[in-house]
């Protein structure tokens, strides 16, 4: 069966679940928190950019120079 | 060969519905569980033999 003949390299990685449920939950929680943080920062960044655009729009011709 | 039976002479294969998919999931799961039970049993038997 030549589609799964490279077993050797696969064996280094073990995808068995629930070996240590508490550690697995903690690792997930950290990943989820990082995602939340990333998404929050992206939204803050976008808001900042919109504010900047708004600010520039409101500048008078004089202030712009 | 199962797939040759499936397609007959038409070169077509019958579309499966949700029920077919559900039944297949259950059959595969059951087969896997049965295999696990067998493995445990043989392990148990081996241990018994060793204990004697």
């Amino acid at each position, binding site marked *: 069966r*030549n*589609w*799964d003949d*490279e077993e050797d*390299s*696969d064996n*280094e*990685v*073990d*995808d*068995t*679940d629930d070996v240590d449920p508490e550690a*697995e*939950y903690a*690792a*997930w*929680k*950290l*990943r*989820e*928190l*990082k*995602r*939340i*943080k990333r*998404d*929050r920062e*992206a*939204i803050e960044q*976008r808001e900042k950019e919109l504010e900047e655009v708004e600010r520039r729009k409101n500048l008078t011709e004089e202030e712009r120079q | 060969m199962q*797939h*040759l039976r*499936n*397609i007959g002479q*038409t*070169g*077509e*294969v*019958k*579309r*499966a*519905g*949700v029920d*077919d*998919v*559900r*039944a*297949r*999931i259950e059959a*595969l*799961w059951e087969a*896997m569980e049965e295999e696990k039970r067998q493995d445990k049993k043989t392990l148990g038997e081996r241990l018994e033999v060793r204990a004697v």
Partner: protein
Amino acid sequence: MANHRADEKRFLDERGSGGPLAPNGLNPATIMEKPVRERIIDSYFWKDQCFAVNEADIVDRVVTHVKFIGGTYGDAQRPSPFLCLAFKLLQLGPGDDILREYLEYGGEKFKYLRALACFYIRLTRQAKDVYLFLEPYLEDRRKLKQKKRMGTALTYMDQFVDDLLEKDRICATTLWKMPKREVLEDLEVLEARVSPLGDIEDLLESDPELVNENG
């Protein structure tokens, strides 16, 4: 239509023309890139395991043969069984009811079946449905093997789903450019996502170090 063609010939002939489009408006026959499609239909796995396969047989093939997620790998850039079966799904075009079965009932039991359905949904569904179908599995922490071009790595279902929502390219396939979640929220297409961890403000107050850990 009660039947599928057993092989891919008609599917591929429909590339330019009259074949049915995916719900997101893309032509399923061209979602994967041409060299990748060619490698798939040349592969032994495709010829041996993906001929005359229907929506139920897909489950069987995943359970028996899919031991990792991935695109093409090795010097020969061989397509993974995962990728071949995703291509088969593009040919079969399963409806949402079947996909839900793969994701939920089947996905609880067989994690690689859920991963495959998530990948296929990302390729073919409208943005709103991609978010709605996939986001619940940001909570699924089961491990997945992922074969990269060189070597195998460990990932997780939640990580894979996040990659599908965030990245441009995964499993040798360029993902169509989906509107960001926040854009759909502004349009009131989607409601804000609530993390299973609850309110982020509460979390930050109770445990700020956790969030800042490892940058």
